[in-house]
């Protein structure tokens, strides 16, 4: 199911290629598709993570409208731009790709990452900590937890 983050900045990158350069500077194994121009991105943005197809939805939204959706959050100042990244929460690669792309974008634009899950605002360095956490090889724990949850649900529903 869907998980989202918001990427606030006061300047925009001009092209997917510039975003890709920022990703490369972080040494992330992520390759964004440049099939669509950055300005016209509106939906799934294809990428490859370690050569495997993945991606996330990406939309340019109105920053003031997005900030107004979170009246309890102090964004520091009125940011000019926002990118909305959305991925399927069940797909780990999408989540990792989104966080890598967001971290690189935030670094390149001196922007911040707002995670809807915990309501926290992170700069690029702080977002990188999330990336490192998501890279940990514990998918087997998640898979086992899901399997066991289903077993228990069957006996209850």
């Amino acid at each position, binding site marked *: 199911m869907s998980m989202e983050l918001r990427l606030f900045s006061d300047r925009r990158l001009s092209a997917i290629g510039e975003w890709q350069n920022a990703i490369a500077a972080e040494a992330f194994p992520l390759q964004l598709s440049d099939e669509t121009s950055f300005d016209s991105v509106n939906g799934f943005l294809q990428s490859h993570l370690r050569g495997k197809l993945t991606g996330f939805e990406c939309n340019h939204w109105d920053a003031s409208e997005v900030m107004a959706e979170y009246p309890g959050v102090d964004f520091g100042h009125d940011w000019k731009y926002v990118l909305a990244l959305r991925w399927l929460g069940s797909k780990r690669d999408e989540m990792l790709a989104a966080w890598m792309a967001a971290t690189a974008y935030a670094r390149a634009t001196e922007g911040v990452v707002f995670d809807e899950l915990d*309501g926290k605002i992170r700069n690029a360095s702080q977002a990188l900590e999330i990336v490192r956490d998501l890279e940990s090889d514990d998918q087997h724990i998640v898979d086992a937890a899901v399997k066991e949850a289903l077993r228990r649900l069957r006996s209850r529903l």
Partner: protein
Amino acid sequence: MEGRVKLGAVTLNEMRDALGLDPFATPAADRPMVLTATGYVPIEAGVGGEGAVANAPGANAKTAPLVEKRSVFKDYDPDEPRVPAGNPDGGQWTSGGEVPATLPAVANDDPITPARQYASTLVIKHPGAWTGDSRTDETTDKLVTVLQGVMETVEYPPGMSPQRYGQLIHQAFATAVVAEGLSGIGADDVETTFPEGPYGSPGSIRTDVVLRNDDGKIIAIYDVKTGEADLTPTRANQLRAKTGAPSKTSVIQIRFNEALSKIS
């Protein structure tokens, strides 16, 4: 915000501060806690090893067996005391020790109706979530029941970050919905790419769940969210447009933090 407290993303006192309320004096209110079926457990419990929970201030006796077993699941105990139905926190586990048993009410512009309880989880359904179409409403009810079951069955793996736990819950729910085999929701109707095409189609969007009638037409779109922001009308219209559903199709939001609402 309450959902974030339950995930351990913020402390109880951080939530109270955001609400303009005075902090609780108890030290437990300043520590990240995760809501399990046995009550609130300090988030650092898993990091500290098997004895961490039992030794941590604010831990209640119910948490000890969980850690001893090193299990990420909690066996349901129907005899465990809970806040009575009818109370705004009805159904939540009560807990002893220093951990506050209930959370303060969170301001919400919409009227809410405690409508259903499933085991330990309180679910709040917004009156606007009901469409009047029996098939849609029954499906909504079933999806919420599945979600409740997932929330109660999946325990917080020790040491896991909120982001990874969120992924776990989402994965469990998606799998459970498919496994449930609900009428009108096929396996291809969960996490579906629209416009219909292969995974990764540029510019596509993915719906969480779509409900179809007997003719295969989409009659409801479900959007399952973890955060606090509502599904916007713009996004709801995007979902209708990309799926090819009629403009009047219900787009129903289900939140993991126990709220359910409809965006017209």
